């Protein structure tokens, strides 16, 4: 499929540490099309952020190492692209939004300079033009009185406003791909909704493909078109957002959904018991089996993918139940 903006194939990002090799990303594949928002969910340490950083090759190497796979951006493999070439893509064709707006802006530079920096770097415009464009961008992301605000320092902005600035920076060059790493985690709920709406609106208007990394299933349900669930460096389930939420296939996804508080149903919250596995000692077999309520002897072998590239899960239990009842595949 060539209309995919981003196509990640069997990505393997490993870290070589004193305690052994950590396979933070171990064979991840997905694709995102124009104007599409893909949610990448999982708990801390599941490899979702590393996947995102790998796309822009921002993983420090060493200790990181790309052990395999391809990351095709508009058909070009980002993993083999020369650094200088990749730099012209960063912030220009591929932009990134970081988690914490309180720390992702340089306290020593005015907002106009930080937004202007991207424009000056990639669009070759001068400072005065960049300044004007910065005002437009601030206006676009909904910052009131942008002409005055643009010349202020980050500390003069609230958290939500700073995240808008960060988004304005990310959108400055109208990227084809936007990587958002927990863009709303540091914000309170009302601001969260506004920021998500903003990202969603821009994806639709500008046709930007978005990879939304988050551990918040509520966020995913609200804005994403499709979802991939990561566990211990692998995608364990994927599907369109509606199908995945209504009929989760993997026990881990079910566990995640059961641990989210909901207003429309009563009952106890059930956490996913246990802790994420130590990635250095991960061997053969399903990484989730020690925490899985449905684990059986077969789980000692690494599970095969069950389903299609659009909808499916990596779980033996699915395959077992498929023998007795028809699979629900969308």
């Amino acid at each position, binding site marked *: 499929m060539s209309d995919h903006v981003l196509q990640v194939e069997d990505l393997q990002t490993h870290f070589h540490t004193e305690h052994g090799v950590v396979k933070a990303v171990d064979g991840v594949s997905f694709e995102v099309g124009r104007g599409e928002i893909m949610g990448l969910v999982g708990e801390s340490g599941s490899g979702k952020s590393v996947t995102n950083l790998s796309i*822009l090759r*921002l993983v420090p190497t060493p200790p990181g190492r790309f052990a395999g796979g391809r990351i095709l951006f508009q058909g070009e493999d980002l993993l083999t692209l020369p650094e200088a070439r990749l*730099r*012209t*893509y*960063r*912030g*220009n064709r591929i*932009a*990134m939004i*970081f*988690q*914490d707006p309180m*720390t*992702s*802006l*340089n*306290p*020593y*530079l*005015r907002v*106009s*300079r930080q937004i202007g*920096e*991207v424009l000056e*770097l*990639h669009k070759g415009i001068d*400072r005065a033009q960049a*300044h004007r464009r910065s005002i437009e961008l601030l206006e676009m992301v909904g910052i009131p009185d942008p002409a*005055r605000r643009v*010349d202020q*320092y980050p*500390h003069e902005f609230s958290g939500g406003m700073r995240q808008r600035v*960060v988004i304005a*920076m990310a959108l400055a060059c109208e990227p084809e791909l936007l990587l958002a790493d927990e863009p709303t985690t540091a914000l309170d709920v009302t601001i969260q909704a506004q920021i998500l709406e903003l990202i969603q609106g821009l994806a639709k208007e500008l046709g930007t493909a978005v990879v939304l990394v988050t551990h918040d299933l509520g966020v995913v349900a609200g804005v994403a078109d499709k979802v991939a669930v990561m566990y211990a460096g692998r995608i364990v389930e994927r599907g369109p957002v509606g199908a995945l939420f209504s009929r989760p296939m993997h026990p881990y996804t079910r566990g995640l959904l059961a641990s989210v508080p909901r207003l429309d149903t009563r009952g106890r919250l059930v956490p996913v018991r246990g802790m994420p596995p130590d990635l250095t000692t991960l061997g053969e077999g399903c990484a989730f089996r020690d925490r899985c309520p449905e684990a059986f002897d077969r789980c000692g072998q690494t599970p095969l993918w069950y389903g299609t590239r659009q909808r499916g899960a990596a779980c033996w239990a699915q395959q077992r139940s498929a023998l007795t009842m028809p699979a629900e595949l969308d």
Partner: protein
Amino acid sequence: MSAADTHLVVDERELVAGTSLWQDAWRRWRRNRVSVVSAVVLVAVMVFCSVGPLAAELLLGATYDGQDISLGASAPSWAHPMGTDVLGRDVMARTMHGGRVSLMVALVATAVSLLVGVTYGAVSGFVGGRVDAAMMRFVDLLLSTPYLLLVIVLMAVIPPSSVSIGGLDGSFVLMFAALGLVSWLVLARIVRGQVLSLKQQEYVEAARAIGVPQATILFRHIVPNTLGPVIVYSTLTIPSVMLSEAFLSFLGLGIREPQASWGTLVSDGANAMVVYPWLLLAPGLTMTLTLFCLNFLGDGLRDALDPRQGET
């Protein structure tokens, strides 16, 4: 009412016009009265030391090395406003002359530590890994060598006569070289430490994510953030460098009689403190005033260079 409006208009124009850190810092700094007064005093001291000797010679006929044994150590008078020393030399002329050496020492040490120390430390911390380890071991090596030994070796290896520049005595040049050699070491360490923590900041990652080249990241996004500690440390370095110079001179490795510096004048004056207090007071107070002002200036600069400091 209209006054307030005018003020607002002016402020806004400044906001739009000034976009560099330095312009902002300048605007903030001017509001810090103590710091501005200190700067004015420092300029006055510099004028006193640079133009002063000439004026004193023309007006009072006093030179730093002109002896008049018949005067002996005389108390301050109209002819000699700060008195004379035991050889009958005018203390004011000597203080002015000594200020040249001391201020130059301070200037050289600060310039070297800012240029070399900040760059070295920043690069070391930013590159990290083996480069960092090697660069820092070199600093450790220089720091662990006794300073005095370093200077003596330097002077033994390089004959002072071979390095005299213009009218400057060779041993003088060597002393500057020695002070410059060691003055940047601690600052390099401080900056490296700062950079190590700053490069983990998300805005550095963000800068990388928008394709900013490494060198620009280091010098636009990281180094300005280290300025606070750098300035504070620099203001602390200056007095200690002045004292090192006095110490070297005392050992005969720095400047020699009849040349003088504040350090040597103070140490000479301290010996005769009880009998001829003006010998200590004149250079001592001048030096104290200078160091005071440097500290206030440094404080003011640090605050001005930090945009987070109240701009209400």
